[in-house]
């Protein structure tokens, strides 16, 4: 009885034309169209134009801006940095989050409080968090430096952010720090979908804890990990504040990713046209990642068409 009614309703629903949906969707479509799609178009357009430093449009220039981007001296370094930055941060984040989620999934006094504490770096502004590290890692007045010396891990304070290599690695550590909470919560949500009796069955069958984890739990976490990894890849790839605050004052491009390079092209060099060409390249990279996301995670099957 209900099923026939549901079917009838569905048929009725399907008949409803897109025209009827329009008033409900129009505000969202206008906002997305105006602030997301149009700028994408304008960016692609600009990437083929010749712009003066003051924004005066001097006409078509073909692929000149792209040629300039791919001819930039620091580009090989920047591309290598981008790959190391994105995959390094995401890989370490996922490994730490797997362990942390496993820990948070255990039942112990204070677990709820710990969960609340772990969201702090997630909720807090990333710029604000990274500036603490800029201060803490200073070789003279930095508290983290002092702490590492007091612990006996270092003989004397080190200027972590004074050279590109250690600055870049420090920034990666901070990026991991701010990415772990979200990732941990996604993994934790995945862990809660693992049925309890499966774990106990594995235990009774004589599987050790390690074996149970890798052969029973881990395979079930794969969907959650795919989501977490891809969302992190996009966030980390796009990240500006951490590198801007931590290595932004180091001269040259040895600690830059394509995102911070794009920012420097806009801000310091006022080369909007070249920056647009680089942004288009970044945009294509992100579209590819989104494509992988749609293919692997299939989030759209949640939507009942």
């Amino acid at each position, binding site marked *: 009885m209900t099923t026939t009614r549901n079917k009838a309703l569905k048929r009725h629903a399907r008949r409803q034309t897109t025209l009827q949906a329009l008033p409900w*969707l129009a505000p969202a479509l206008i906002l997305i169209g105006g602030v997301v799609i149009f700028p994408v178009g304008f960016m692609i357009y600009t990437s083929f134009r010749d712009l003066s430093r003051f924004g005066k449009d001097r006409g078509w220039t073909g692929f000149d801006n792209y040629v300039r981007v791919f001819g930039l001296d620091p580009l090989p370094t920047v591309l290598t940095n981008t790959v190391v930055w994105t995959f390094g941060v995401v890989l370490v984040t996922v490994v730490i989050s797997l362990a942390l989620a496993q820990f948070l999934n255990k039942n*112990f006094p204070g677990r709820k409080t*710990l969960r609340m504490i772990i969201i702090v770096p997630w909720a807090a502004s990333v710029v*604000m968090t990274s500036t603490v590290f800029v201060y803490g890692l200073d070789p003279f*007045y930095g508290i983290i430096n002092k702490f590492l010396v007091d612990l006996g891990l270092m003989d004397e304070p080190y200027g972590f952010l004074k050279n590109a290599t250690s600055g870049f690695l420090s920034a990666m550590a901070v990026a991991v720090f701010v990415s772990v909470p979200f990732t941990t919560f*996604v993994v934790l949500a995945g862990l809660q979908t693992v049925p309890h009796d499966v774990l106990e069955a594995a235990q009774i069958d004589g599987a050790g804890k390690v074996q149970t984890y890798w052969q029973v739990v881990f395979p079930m976490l794969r969907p959650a990990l795919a989501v977490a990894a891809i969302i992190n890849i996009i966030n980390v790839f796009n990240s500006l504040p951490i590198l801007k605050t931590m290595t932004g004052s180091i001269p040259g491009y040895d600690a830059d990713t394509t995102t911070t390079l794009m920012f420097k092209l806009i801000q310091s060099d006022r080369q909007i046209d070249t920056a647009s060409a680089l942004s288009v390249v970044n945009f294509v990279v*992100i579209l590819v990642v989104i494509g992988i996301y749609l293919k692997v995670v299939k989030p759209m099957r*949640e939507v009942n068409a």
Partner: protein
Amino acid sequence: MTRSTQAEGFATAPQGNVTQTSHKYVTKQNLPSPNATKRLKSGEAGRWGLTIVGVIVALVFLVPYLIMLSGAFKSRQEILRVPPDYLPSDWRFSNFVNMWSTPETPLPQNLYSTVIISLGGTALALVVALPAAYYTARHSFRLKLPFMLLVLITQMLQPTVLASGLFREFVTLDINDTRFAMILVNAAFNLSFAIWIMHSFFATVPKEIEEAAWIDGCNRGQSMVRIMLPLVWPGIVTAIIFTFIACWNEFAASLILLPTDTNQPLTVALTKFIGQYESAWQYVFAVSIIGILPVVALFAMIEKHLVSGLTAGGVK
């Protein structure tokens, strides 16, 4: 697809191969265990052991914010002392008073900017997302899948990658360097989260409840306000709070699109205290405390809904 599968997400999927093994568990579990009490005791101790590990983990996650707190109460001389002290010699509140009038940045305007952009961005995102979330959860139409796909792709994009296009657009429209432009940017890039999370809440409300209201003489608007809103309220609150926090913390787009210091939000203003040669760290940290406390409190309220919204239902 039915509503129940929507609510459960993929949680149901991996359970198929489970039933077979679970029989064994039932029979063994019924046997009394001789070591039961002993195990219980050692388990209790083990749990407190875990708590100790938990305290260490908590400290690791809190360290930057403890440094921030300590620094916000130090004097200028003290925070630049070599070697540094962990805690201020006397906890002075003066940084929280003096930071509002410094040559580096007009902080009262910056706070005003942050508040206006956050409130405006949240309000706009909500007004735009609410009808879309409701309609897509309730009706089937041909362009629904493309629409939701578009929303999903927006969620994956960030203003940073579109910065040059946004900059050119706003210059052309003559709204560059205005708070209004930032309200638009924040609303647009947080719209998708708001639509997804509210869509999933609307989808869990049985259609029959609403139909009953229509039969009783409510029109569509009335049934939405009187019947739906109370039921999906947690989803709406989550959307509001999350959007507000995202607007409040936004940095990259403001940095590029707001050159005038009086328009800049707190996140950008903060960096003005860090100079090439001299930095007013005590103000950086006092501003950070003001900037972080409210959002952490708000964030804690919506924690349990966040994962499902951010992963667009990919993970429950």
